[in-house]
């Protein structure tokens, strides 16, 4: 065991001495998370609306009040400023009102509003929220007008409407998803699915780069020297794999923590999620050792690692959720470790899965790791007969 740990420690030390490794394993994923967050998770998911025109009027106050009540972040500015904000994506929807519109609203007559959306994808969803808020303002104004036209003084009419809102229980609509696919994704937060997919893709990809370090060590003659010491081939390989496993596990944990803190990703039971990550890292590291023992050119191994990593990630559901796969592709997908880890994460994140629920996935991942380590050990011993 001492020799395995000794080899692993050197592997980590060599990894840390190469600054580019630190960028790709720790900084690059964080940058990507930030990129994805800015694209899909603008302003932590809160809708932003800018109001322009008719400041201080009854219409402006009613709109701002209703929007804020509906959870929208409201700002006011001049029309040029609001247009600038829309073009730069700093607000999702702009509402432009005129003094004439404000006067019509105050008089209980129909009033027009100019609503402009920004180009980002989230703006369309915010537009729906704005429409609902405007509808609410419009309804309340009509109710007020009806009461006033029936002879109720304005103040009493307003008080009656407030009383009615507080005394009557709000109708509650529960949406039930009827199609299977929608039900499969039930319980997922905005980033939960993508975070699990990206985690599996990145951990596997960066682990496969370990193949190149093994080939370099073979070329230097270090592996031969290690195996001329009282160290079995499986111990030499296990040491190398343990080093890569440690790096992968730290990277995976880092992504988990980062996405939870930055985007509120819910990973479910942290212990179970961690267990899935540990076994997936073991498979990734062992796969790297197989490539590192099988191939003799480290540059080619890096290329194969990236290609294989992307193909397996695609097949395993790290790019498109496997729930959308055909039956044949579903079967192929189960040949990849990504798929088993994906299924385990899905159970934990969406259905509060327990250890018993994910035991089959954990078992398959463990078997894959052991099988690949045994294969890598055999190939490493055989590689010593080849000249590099």
């Amino acid at each position, binding site marked *: 065991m*001492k*020799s395995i740990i*000794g*080899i692993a420690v*050197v592997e980590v*030390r*060599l990894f840390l*001495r*190469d600054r580019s490794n630190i960028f790709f394993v720790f900084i690059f994923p964080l940058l990507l998370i930030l990129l994805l967050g800015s694209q899909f998770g603008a302003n932590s998911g809160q809708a932003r609306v800018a109001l322009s025109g008719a400041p201080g009027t009854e219409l402006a106050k009613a709109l701002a009040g209703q929007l804020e009540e509906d959870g929208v972040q409201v700002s006011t500015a001049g029309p040029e400023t609001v247009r600038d904000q829309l073009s730069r994506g700093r607000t999702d929807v702009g509402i432009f009102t005129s003094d004439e519109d404000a006067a019509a609203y105050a008089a209980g007559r129909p009033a027009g509003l100019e609503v402009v959306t920004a180009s980002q994808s989230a703006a369309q969803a915010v537009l729906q929220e704005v429409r609902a808020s405007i509808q609410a303002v419009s309804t309340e104004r009509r109710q007020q007008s009806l009461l006033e036209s029936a002879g109720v003084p304005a103040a009493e009419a307003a008080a009656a409407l407030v009383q009615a809102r507080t005394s009557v229980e709000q109708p509650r609509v529960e949406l039930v998803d009827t199609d299977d696919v929608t039900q499969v994704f039930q319980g997922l937060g905005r980033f939960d699915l993508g975070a699990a997919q990206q985690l599996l893709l990145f951990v596997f990809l960066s682990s496969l780069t370990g193949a190149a370090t093994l080939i370099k*060590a073979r070329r*230097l*003659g*270090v592996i*031969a*020297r*290690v*195996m*001329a*010491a*009282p*160290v*079995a*081939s499986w111990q030499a390989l296990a040491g190398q794999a343990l080093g890569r496993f440690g790096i992968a596990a730290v990277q995976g944990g880092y992504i988990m923590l980062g996405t939870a803190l930055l985007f509120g990703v819910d990973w479910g039971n942290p212990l179970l999620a961690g267990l899935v990550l540990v076994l997936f890292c073991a498979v990734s590291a062992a796969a790297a050792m197989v490539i590192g023992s099988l191939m003799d050119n480290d540059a080619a191994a890096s290329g194969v690692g990236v290609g294989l990593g992307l193909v397996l990630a695609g097949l395993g559901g790290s790019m498109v959720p496997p729930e959308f796969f055909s039956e044949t592709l579903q079967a192929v997908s189960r040949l990849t470790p990504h798929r088993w880890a994906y299924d385990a994460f899905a159970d934990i994140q969406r259905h509060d899965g327990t250890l018993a629920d994910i035991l089959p996935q954990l078992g398959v991942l463990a078997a894959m790791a052991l099988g690949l380590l045994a294969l890598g050990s055999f190939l490493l*011993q055989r590689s*010593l*007969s080849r000249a590099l």
Partner: protein
Amino acid sequence: MTAEVQTQKAQVLGVKGLVKRYGDHTVVDGVSFHIEAGETYGLLGPNGAGKTTIISMVAGLIPADSGSIELVGSAMTPASTRVKGHIGLVPQELAIYPDLTAKENLLFFGRLQGLSGQELKGRTAEVLELIGLADRAGEQTKKFSGGMKRRLNIGIGLLHRPTLLILDEPTVGVDPQSRNSILESVEGLATEGMAVLYTTHYMEEAERLCDRIAIIDEGKIQAEGTRNQLVELTGGVDRIDLHGSGNTSAAATALRQLPGVQHVDGGASGLALTVHNGPGLLAPIVAEAGRAGMALTSVEIVRPDLESVFLHLTGKALRD
């Protein structure tokens, strides 16, 4: 009987009938030899003779197709993990991590050999002193010169005081000063009782260091013995080296016809002749070479040495 028992006790390595094939090509063909404690044994042969393959089998890196290897009384195969602790391997390539310091390299390989704690620290310091790198211990080895890397390469092999030290062409690509330093270090090891298996294609190194030498070519041991025993095999022939230019191939053809000339070997820049009574034949050889169109720049008579032995046994020069 008593003598046999004593010999067996002193034997560190015994190799019998070792064979290694790659496809149809037999790289090592029935090699047998033994090494005793305190003895330096040389494998002398040109590149591609099979020396490194023999060493790889002895070190348990690759399996033999047939034959046996016994190290301090135990069979040695790639699975003999425990037995490997008796070996210190110094491979031909610089098997060190360039991104680690000299000290980190020694500590790493020392741990693999089972050293730990104060023993590991103390032995690391001793070896750094021995190989003259104590003041550079904290530097990454990628900044070292070729000679310094070679010395570290050897130091790693010595770290755990092995019973058998295997040195595979340890002076390849080394400057003369470092080479001499390495050879002096190896000379000192045998006096400490360590058995040394030394491969080289440099005749002078084998002559200087080795108690017994096996001349190996095309995977077979052609002859084995002390330097004097091997020289006797040539039957007292001399070697005459002719250096020059011109029509060397015509000169070689003409010289082969000359009485007393056994072998003629060489290329465009010179010829090596194996002859009886070199001094006596020198004048007719020079004259014949001149007549054949070879312009001589220098002539040298070399009394029998291992180069001559190799030429005598294989019909080709060791440098080939």
